[in-house]
């Protein structure tokens, strides 16, 4: 790229609005949270003396089995829901890449779950899962699959998976659209050549199609993982972390630490730990995007 006269000053002028907002709303608060995590700060109406306590919060956090459990649950949520979204999304994309009547309509239809607000999604599924009058119970009962009504979200063994189902329903379309767009760039010649070589559909998918679309898929997988890892809203509405804390994810844990127990110092250290794990995922994104674009 050629450098224009005065490009340097212009660059900063152009960046100024974005930089200001992001500095004030993201960079500075992040540093403040980092600082808080090394202190014994608490949220209180009275002015209090805050002192520096080094790594104490972190040592506490990493030896707090409840917090470690919540991290594990968050990872479980992330892997299972993103995994399911990818499998379902790619399958749907393959389906919608076929020739059939009403293809345009079907492609349009699957934007619906994505367009519905997360909170509405959570509320809808909570109603569907309702132990007394829920649609799921009624349907499964009428189909003869269950003998009696279940408390889907009240059962610690299945609650998390039910939340994941709701999350997958909402988010698989995104993966499907990305996969579909990538599928449309697979060169027909290559597939036809493979067909002439006698490769069956299964082989063609794994040897040609999948390697071709894996780049974009990786990007979306990491993006979705980052998003899933900070899951909060759907948990807040569907289970509030229950039953028996079985759906209490890391974000929810920190939220409670801050706003229920008012421990800003230790809460911040939890937040930073969650952030660090996110950073690993973000780094994964960086790699995937780089692989895909050559640039960032």
């Amino acid at each position, binding site marked *: 790229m050629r450098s224009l006269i005065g490009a340097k000053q212009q660059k900063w002028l*152009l960046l100024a609005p974005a930089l200001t907002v992001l500095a004030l709303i993201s960079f500075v608060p992040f540093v403040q949270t980092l600082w808080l995590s090394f202190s014994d700060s608490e949220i209180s109406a009275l002015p209090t003396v805050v002192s520096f306590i080094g790594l104490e919060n972190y040592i506490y956090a990493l030896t707090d089995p409840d917090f470690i459990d919540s991290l594990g649950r968050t990872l479980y949520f992330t892997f299972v829901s993103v995994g399911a979204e990818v499998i379902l999304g790619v399958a749907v994309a393959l389906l919608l890449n076929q020739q059939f009547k009403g293809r345009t309509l079907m492609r349009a239809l699957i934007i619906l779950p994505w367009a519905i607000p997360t909170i509405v999604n959570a509320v809808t599924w909570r109603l569907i899962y309702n132990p007394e009058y829920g649609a799921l119970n009624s349907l499964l009962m009428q189909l003869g699959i269950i003998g009696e009504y279940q408390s889907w979200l009240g059962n610690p063994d299945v609650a998390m998976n039910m939340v994941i189902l709701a999350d997958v329903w909402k988010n698989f379309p995104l993966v499907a659209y990305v996969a579909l767009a990538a599928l449309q760039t697979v060169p027909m010649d290559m597939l036809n050549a493979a067909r002439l070589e006698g490769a069956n559909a299964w082989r063609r998918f794994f040897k040609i199609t999948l390697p071709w679309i894996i780049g974009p898929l990786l990007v979306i997988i990491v993006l979705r993982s980052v998003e899933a890892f900070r899951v909060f809203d759907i948990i807040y509405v569907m289970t509030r972390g229950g039953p028996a804390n079985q759906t209490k994810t890391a974000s929810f844990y920190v939220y409670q630490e801050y706003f229920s127990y008012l421990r800003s110092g230790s809460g911040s250290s939890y937040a930073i730990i969650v952030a660090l794990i996110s950073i690993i995922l973000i780094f994964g994104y960086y790699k995937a995007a780089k692989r895909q674009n050559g640039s960032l």
Partner: protein
Amino acid sequence: MHSTIKRPRHLSCLLYASLTLLAFFVLAPVLWLLLMSLSSPTDLTKVPLQWIPSQWDFSRYALLLDWQNGSGKRFLAAMLNSLIIATSASFIALVAGVLAAYAFSRRNASMLLMFAFLATIMMPPITYILPLYSAFSELGILNTKVSLIICYSAMLIPFAIWLMKTNIDVLPEEIEHAAMIEGAGTIYTLRKVVLPIILPAIGATAMLSFLTAWDEFFYALIFSSDLSAKTIPVAIADFSAGRVTDFGVIASVGVLASVPPVLIALFFQRFIVSGLVGGSVKG
């Protein structure tokens, strides 16, 4: 495309069976939400359920769309707040985003900074929330739309920059050079030459930003406490958690809150999907 290839019969059956299953999976929850909002409370509490309402009940919609009524007021105020906040934040994000994207595309701004910007939205909001809470409370803007507009702008800007940047990158730079030689300054060139060319991308970014802001819950939950700033997701969470026992009311709120995003998504589908996919597929 292989339109001429005839599909064997069994594959055809398999295809249409899968499509039916997919349609059911996608549509069933939405349809059920709609049905719940139109069923009478007695239908909704039958065991097993009365799937098709014995009579259509529009009373909740009447209730919710009425400013005079308590629930209606809570709902409509939240819708209005969401509308104002999402629109303003999207607008700010677009303006800041286009300018910054131009700096990244054409003025050699460091890609490391771009990555730092993107990283801010990938971090969980819990890393920002407490200092923001204290700052807003000191500034006295807790529970105002302004605080949410600012937060949402920060949330939308990196994404807007990225989308705009991928679109500006592919424009031939000579066109801008021509404008500059003709005497136009950077802002003039942006406004009269670059923006009109990337208008579709701007449209996509605007809509995606609006939808993202409309959807946000965490900041809204924490920064708003009453009708003056509560957004629709918070209002829905309130409805579903609170005193309301009639599922129909909750369902109606959900339906109404979904109308703007669903309409946008359906009408501008191509735009939006290209925006969504843009960053990962074409690069």
